């Protein structure tokens, strides 16, 4: 089964670039896109993505708060914070909200590798755990 991504960013340009980068991997697909936290939470519960790429500074609730609410629902789904403001302090806050990894938007180089590492062990067994988190509402 292909890995399904939810990408959340208020910039269409950033979402487009993310699509290009992620879809270069034939095993990855974008299942949904949102431009703010509220819309992301709605899609998150509807689409049950396997992984979320999340912007930090967005209109309405910010990425950290969005992540906090997502991890309350499905803690096993990895969330990557994709931000212009990556710093150790932000990272600490991000981890407290259940975010697995923080990637700097302006140094997006290591992102693909980082995502692979996040998904890596999940390919086999924990993937099942991940889907179990959603209960019976599993889509596709």
């Amino acid at each position, binding site marked *: 089964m292909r890995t399904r991504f939810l990408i959340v960013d208020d910039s269409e340009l950033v979402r487009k670039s993310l699509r290009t980068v992620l879809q270069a991997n034939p095993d990855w697909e974008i299942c949904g896109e949102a431009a703010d936290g509220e819309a992301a939470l709605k899609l998150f519960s509807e689409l049950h993505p396997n992984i979320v790429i999340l912007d930090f500074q967005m209109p309405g609730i910010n990425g950290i708060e969005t992540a906090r609410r997502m991890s309350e629902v499905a803690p096993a789904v990895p969330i990557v914070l994709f931000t212009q403001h990556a710093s150790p302090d*932000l990272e600490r806050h991000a981890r407290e909200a259940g975010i697995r990894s923080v990637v700097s938007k302006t140094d997006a*180089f290591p992102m693909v590798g980082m995502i692979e590492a996040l998904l890596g062990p999940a390919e086999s067994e924990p993937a099942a755990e991940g889907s179990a988190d959603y209960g019976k509402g599993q889509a596709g």
Partner: protein
Amino acid sequence: MREQEKVNILMVDDQPGKLLTYEAILNELDENLIKARSGKEALDHLLRTDIAVVLMDVSMPELDGFQLADMIRQHPRFQKIAIIFISAVHLTDLDRLNAYQRGAVDYISVPVVPELLRAKVRVFADLHRKTQQLETLNRDLRSLSARLLAMQDEERRHIARDLHDSIGPLIAALSMNNGMLAQQTKKLGPDVADVLQQNNQLVEQLSKDIRTISHLLHPPLLDEIGLLPAIKMFAEGFAERSSVKVDVELSPEIGRLPPNVEISVFRVVQECLTNVYRHSGSKTASIKIAPSQEKLLTVQVRDEGKGMPRTNGVPASPGSNHGVGLSGMRERLRELGGTLEIKSSENGTTVIAAVPVAKPMVKNV
């Protein structure tokens, strides 16, 4: 006839005839004349109206002129009232000295020369009017400077937001595209791979520069996750740019504060560190933010530099870069009901700002 406001002149004498005489003399000034027949009546007027000049007899039954003057001077609101004594008796130098020590501005003996009395009262009435105008202007200036500071904050926030929203995504897209290309380096010739590598470095530099500008304009973390992380991040960036070692000590119980307090405290710290870098010559700085009382936040920034330039023993001279920054800080804090204290010597400078907060800060341990 004239556009300026009339001021109140209080005349105090136990003899009605004298009061009428003073009234006749002072009528020409076209101010408000108020008559009081006793010291007690005079106090009643003083409490109710803003009085510019008190003209009073020294010898009155019950409360005499000197006692009344003492009572007036004790009240902070009345400190600036001009008191003129009129006396037919008590005319020794000691009596006059007694009057001046009680804060009188003049001591006139009877018989009164009408022109002289009128001229003297006019001087103090005008002085009072000018003081009032100055106070009004001062208040206007204060509120203008507070508005300007708030607008400057808003404008900076706006520009930082624009940078983030417009240039930020462009850099992110550039960086991701470069990342895609980098995965194909094997297919590229070494020259092209080299150019790509250079492009990556350029994008990185560009993003770093924009980030610095945007963070100095308005720290993004301030709105999103609060003062303490924003200060920490700013201090880290400052240390990197300036090579000044910065020690940061922040009490976690402070938590989130109202937005105007957060931005003001942030700006105070920012201004202090800028001064450390530009003027102090210090290689170290320390920032300490902690509650000194349940509802009072203390911000302390210390360096080990050469201290501030001193004029007449007072740190900071007007017109220097120091002065502008400091008065800006003072204004910000005054707006919040806070204070600014500066201790400076050849061993370094310590700036201490105290800001009242509405909600008590308690340890959440």
